[in-house]
């Protein structure tokens, strides 16, 4: 066993007497849960939507993200917390994508039906967009998760610094990773459209 085994501290706790007097919300490592929820619910849903392409599924996954935040708050605070939410959200989104079976004929029909119901004149356009999205999803699902997360977060408008925080990479390496992920994505996209 190496020396590094016990880099983990053996936990020293404060006297247990302080414990019950604590305000429950403050007890969560000082996390202002409501404020975090207000700030991040919609953007986190939007990022997950980009991966799964379905609002109710995106919300289900976001719910899981915030339950995890509530039950086991991470050590991160402030803007780092945003990074944590995006990381967990994109992870769960990509997991959902990978475990999903190929969209069926019926689901394609549902897209058309949906377009008709919402009185979108351009039903053919809606179908085309849906097929385009499925193709992008298929590529994201087969890429390395970190590359897929990088592309999605960048496409969602996060800065290099925010992306670096979310994915725990050095800010200086984001450009390199991004160029690589784009090249990988483009190669897979081309292969799909040729074959």
């Amino acid at each position, binding site marked *: 066993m190496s020396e590094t085994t016990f880099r983990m501290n*053996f936990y020293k706790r404060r006297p247990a007497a302080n414990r019950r007097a604590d305000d429950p919300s403050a007890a969560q490592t000082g996390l202002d849960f409501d404020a975090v929820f207000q700030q991040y619910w919609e953007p986190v849903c939007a990022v997950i939507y980009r991966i799964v392409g379905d609002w109710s599924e995106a919300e289900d996954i976001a719910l899981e993200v915030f339950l995890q935040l509530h*039950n086991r*708050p991470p050590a991160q605070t402030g803007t780092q917390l945003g990074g944590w939410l995006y990381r967990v959200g994109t992870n769960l989104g990509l997991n959902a994508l990978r475990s999903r079976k190929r969209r069926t004929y019926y689901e394609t029909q549902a897209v058309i039906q949906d377009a008709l119901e919402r009185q979108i004149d351009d039903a053919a356009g809606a179908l085309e*967009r849906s097929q385009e999205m499925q193709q992008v999803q298929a590529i994201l699902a087969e890429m390395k998760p970190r590359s897929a997360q990088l592309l999605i977060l960048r496409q969602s408008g996060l800065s290099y610094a925010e992306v670096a925080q979310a994915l725990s990479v050095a800010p200086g390496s984001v450009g*390199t990773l991004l160029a690589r992920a784009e090249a990988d994505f483009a190669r897979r996209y081309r292969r799909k459209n040729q074959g």
Partner: protein
Amino acid sequence: MHLKDGEIRAYQDQELQVDRSSQVEAHLASCAACRERADNLAKLSREVGLQLAATQADSRSSPVHADAGRKRFASAIQAQQEKQMMTNKIFSRGLRPVWVGLTLVVLLAISLAFPQVRAAANSFLALFRVQQIAVVQFNPQTMGMSDQAAAQIESLLSEDVQFEQFGEFQMAGSAAEAGGIAGFNVRMPEQAPDGDFDVQPGGRATFLVDLPRLKAIFDAIGKPEIDLPESLQGQPVTLEIPRQVTAYFGECKPEDAPLVEGQDPDMPQTKPWMQDACITFTQLPSPSISAPDGLDIAQLGQAYLQLLGLSEEDAARYASTVDWTTTFVLPVPYNDMTYQDVVVDGVNGTLIQQAYDPTYGSYILLWVKDGIIYSLNGYGSPDGGLQIANGLR
């Protein structure tokens, strides 16, 4: 010196520091090779951006709103709390010392999601001296614990079971001190510095067997065929749980545990405060059960297995392969948990993991050595737990 792709990419995204940015600009102006690469990178980026734009939501279709999300979240939390309160209700009151002892070690981590498992095991455990642990897989769906059955188990536990606690909760500053309080040799890894230890009280539960009530419970859970010998009626079964010692490794913040509203603050919070990087290490001498002479333990074991949903034949077959006087048979739900045998601390142990979530899911590593039960409980990869276990002196 030519520019790196990553730097060109960052330059195009205006993500470079101002001075570096003008250096890059100057270099591009004078270097045709880099300029060509920059053009290609920009082209690639545009192309991928267009393709990824397919993932952009149609702004008309976004139904997501923080307030509505908050409502959904509130009901999800409520459902979670109700589940937890139900669990707490069944296992609070006089049961506390028993739970603090036995279940924290063996059952709790496994059956948090399955209160019915705890009920079954606790009301019915044929434990003598635990010298080994075996696993039986079962399907929680076939248990079908109704509210009625849960209420019956609760009244059984509150009316037919007597509890005594010995010792108080104490904290100790070293393994030796903790061992002195608990009355056994507390082991820690070689490299671990001394820290704080929790020493939990021990307990004794005496159960006077009430066959009609047990029968009613079996009926309520849809297992009327479970058969117990008439000779058991009115007999005492005593479960003794020694004091146990718990140590924490990593980032554990038990004092920061959020108190769930409506929850008994004295109830040990098991899961919520265990953070990703926290490993809980518990050790206690084997609990013991004394039961009436002439009791057919294998028959009780079979009833226990049937209670877990095994068919009568399967239960009988399994029961006959187990030495019930020395083996604790741990119920592990199908699908949700996977288990494997591992060699740990020089003996055979069991590693149980939440199957659905290898990244964040919890694991529990259990083994018995020289009459002491050890349990390591953490999240994610079990490597940290295995290292602690294999470093014990």
